């Protein structure tokens, strides 16, 4: 939950979240960025001024455009921290305002309604003129004029609001080294992020692909220029019939620079996880796992291979006759394979669930009662591990936190019970390809 809170705080926000043109002058923008990181704001309409850092928060002012036609401002905060670049997107719906003039029967009341929402209303003067102040949110193209004369006669006429078109697609480069990662931000006509857009990326040459949606209305695409290509890459993003272009200067990758995370059709990550918890018979248990995970990028599931060690504190067994109670302490070397499914709930943060099964070589040291001595036994046991948790992309990989349920067989290697139990685990997996 702390990671979620951190992520929410780190997102780009505007207050107020939407504006009425002609009434609201602008909105206050806020984004969290690491100290030392450079933050650059830009917008598709309007202007952004007065960016100021206050600790880890950067604030700026979005100034509404002078034209009062309905539109949506696609705002980008580009955060450059060394070689890392983060893009944070925000849409600000801008409600248009204007006065239309109509002529009808004197004394009539006139209302313009769209989708049950009154956009404007007024009354006809003695000469039949009605001045109708209208507020038209983005995405509203038509309305119905309801005219009720003073005798109660009512008529309805369709009204084409004819809002001018505005851009609903923007793109920006996440890197300027090949392969170029591009984020494409798409909103619906009303300004809400479009999670079901049909997005395509095109370039003059080289290869392009749209890989996945990585946030509300944000799609990750990639452009691989031809080898040796220098100069500028001209990119075109198409979404829902709209076009946006971007020119990206191509830079050679510095020696040792990290290749973009997860590029290519598949990726591999590896790392360590440690756990602490308890067995179901009351022993304290801990474990260490070395994990290799492989993922085919188009699927939200990765295959796992774990090698590890688990141990639990001493437990009493055969306690029916206290004088004959044994003490048993177990540890085990284990290997298991499994699968982990992830679902990205917001940028960088995903929830996951996993299941793995394998074998463990369980080594049990028994302390006999009545000072009869100690001995050790070992045996193979099947094991099953089920886990659920969250992972957060940070640095060259991702941090994981999960709760894991282990199940193993009873009565293996003189251990009357089993090492089954529940552990909380944390770890980190580095993207190595």
């Amino acid at each position: 939950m702390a990671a979620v809170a951190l992520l929410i705080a780190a997102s780009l926000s505007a207050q107020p979240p939407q504006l009425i043109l002609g009434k609201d002058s602008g909105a206050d923008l806020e984004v969290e960025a690491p100290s030392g990181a450079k933050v650059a704001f830009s917008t598709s309409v309007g202007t952004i001024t007065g960016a100021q850092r206050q600790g880890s928060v950067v604030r700026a002012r979005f100034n509404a455009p002078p034209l009062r036609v309905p539109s949506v401002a696609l705002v980008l905060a580009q955060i450059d921290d060394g070689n890392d670049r983060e893009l944070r997107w925000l849409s600000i719906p801008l409600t248009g305002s204007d006065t239309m003039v109509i002529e009808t029967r004197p004394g009539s009341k006139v209302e313009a309604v769209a989708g049950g929402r009154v956009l404007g209303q007024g009354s006809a003067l003695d000469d039949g003129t009605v001045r109708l102040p209208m507020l038209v949110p983005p995405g509203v193209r038509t309305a119905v004029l309801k005219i009720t004369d003073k005798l109660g006669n009512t008529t309805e006429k369709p009204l084409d609001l004819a809002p001018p078109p505005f851009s609903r697609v923007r793109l920006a480069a996440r890197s300027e080294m090949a392969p170029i990662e591009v984020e494409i931000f798409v909103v619906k006509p009303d300004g809400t992020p479009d999670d079901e857009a049909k997005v395509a990326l095109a370039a003059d040459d080289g290869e392009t692909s749209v890989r996945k949606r990585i946030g509300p209305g944000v799609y990750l695409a990639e452009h691989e220029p031809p080898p040796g290509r220098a100069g500028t890459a001209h990119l075109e993003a198409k979404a829902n019939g709209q076009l946006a272009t971007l020119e990206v200067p191509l830079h050679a990758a510095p020696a040792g620079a990290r290749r973009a995370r997860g590029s290519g059709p598949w990726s591999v990550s590896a790392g360590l996880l440690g756990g602490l918890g308890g067995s179901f018979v009351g022993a304290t248990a801990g474990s260490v796992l070395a994990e290799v995970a492989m993922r085919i990028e188009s699927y939200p599931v990765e295959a796992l291979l774990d090698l590890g060690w688990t141990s639990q504190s001493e437990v009493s067994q055969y306690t029916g006759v206290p004088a004959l109670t044994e003490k048993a302490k177990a540890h085990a070397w284990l290997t298991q394979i499994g699968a982990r499914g992830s679902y990205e709930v917001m940028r960088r943060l995903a929830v996951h669930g996993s299941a793995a099964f394998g074998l463990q070589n369980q080594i049990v040291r028994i302390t006999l009662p009545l000072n009869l001595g100690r001995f050790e036994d070992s045996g193979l046991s099947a094991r099953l591990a089920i886990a659920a948790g969250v992972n957060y992309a940070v640095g060259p990989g991702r941090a994981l936190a999960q709760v894991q349920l282990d199940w193993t067989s009873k009565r293996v290697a003189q251990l009357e019970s089993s090492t089954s139990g529940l552990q909380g685990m944390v770890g980190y997996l580095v993207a190595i390809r």
Partner: protein
Amino acid sequence: MRLLEGSRLELKQVTKQGLRARVRGSIESQVDQIGRLDVEMENSDATAHSAGGHFFVTADGRGVVAVASVTGVVNVSGGGKSVALNEGEVTRVTRAEPTPSKPVAALRRVLLSVQWPDQKETNKATFPIEGRVEPGSRVFVQGEQVAVEAGGTFRAEVPLKKGKQKIAVVTVDALGRRKQVEGVVLRDDSLPDVKVKKRLWQWRR
């Protein structure tokens, strides 16, 4: 006898000396000194008898009867009681009061008060009016007789044709005197048209 508009007379007995008749509506009667006239009223047991004189009988067919004498004496009986009506006097009989009321002098003027709605323009097919006349009077709206309550009140839903029109309300009182009131009403149920004179965002061009 003179039968007034919208009235019906049924002769029951005719002799050389006199006449017996039943009436609904209004009649004006002139009886010679040598004659005799008995007038019964529809839906009432009241009877007016004159042996010479000029008088009016009005019966609305719903038990409200008014008898007024212009000249001579008229004897009005009903409910076991009889009153003598002298020149210029009026008596009434109703269902609630089946005996003739104490004769009173007729009003000098014909009473007709019509309450028109504030709004004389409407998009409805009918127009409500209400008013008051002297009890025993008859009321006609656009030529159609409307019911008058015992207290003299009346109300009507006047059918309207499209456009501007005159509504005439006429009353005939117990003495046969008429009074007419007119009002002008407009029925307009056409739908208002609309014309956009300035569209949105025009200043852009």
